[in-house]
């Protein structure tokens, strides 16, 4: 998938920027209507990207030596 840290930097950086922009546009377009579910899904998606690629949560259960 993403093999080098520079690839992670660019791909996840651009993904976070795009998703944040989409989140803002959705908030404007669906103004004054309940948009809690959609915004929650977007927030979870952003959090998963950061937790997996930047915080390396998978290292908690990775076998030693890998």
């Amino acid at each position, binding site marked *: 998938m993403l093999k080098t*840290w520079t690839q992670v930097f660019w791909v996840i950086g651009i993904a976070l920027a795009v998703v944040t922009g989409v*989140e803002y546009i959705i*908030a404007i377009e669906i103004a004054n209507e309940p948009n809690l579910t959609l915004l929650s899904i977007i927030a979870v998606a952003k*959090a998963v990207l950061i937790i997996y690629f930047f915080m390396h949560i998978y*290292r908690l259960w990775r076998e030693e030596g890998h």
Partner: protein
Amino acid sequence: MAVATTAVAAHPERDWEKIKRAGLWLFFASESVVFGLLLAARFFIEGTHVDAHLDQALGLGITSILLASSLSAFTAESAIAHGNRKLFYWGLIITILLGTVFAFGVAYEWQIAEFTQHESFGTIFFTMTGVHAAHVISGVIMLVMLLAQALRGRFGPDDHWPVAGVVMYWHFVDVVWVFYYPALYLINFD
């Protein structure tokens, strides 16, 4: 003491780093309870109401700054893991600057807010952003301490756990804001 020394000697360094990493995640779990309760209180007290006078451009701006700081923190950690000290220094410095700008952005938002702490939305807003900003400031202090140690020659590809730990904390603070930003600014956008 003798038991601890024996235990360290019996296990390779990699095991201990894994244990430290697990301890840090347990800390994040306990912190998540605090931040989660504040988030729950926001919806319990105010529903999905958002104050119309919040500066949306400022909210988007400080959110972008904090996300960018996660990228620079990731760069710093990756650079030291690969032995690139110059990029490591710059990653730390940029993260410190962005974190400081974020904290000033929150302070400015407090200053221009057209609601007070005596209103329910004000109570929620000042408490959530205040607790979060306190974590940002503590993160900046830890990053400055890292930079001071790094400039004295500490850390390298085989010895960078303190860098990884502080950077993970920084990312955690970013994750919290990923949930706080829509909850405070975007829901029922006016």
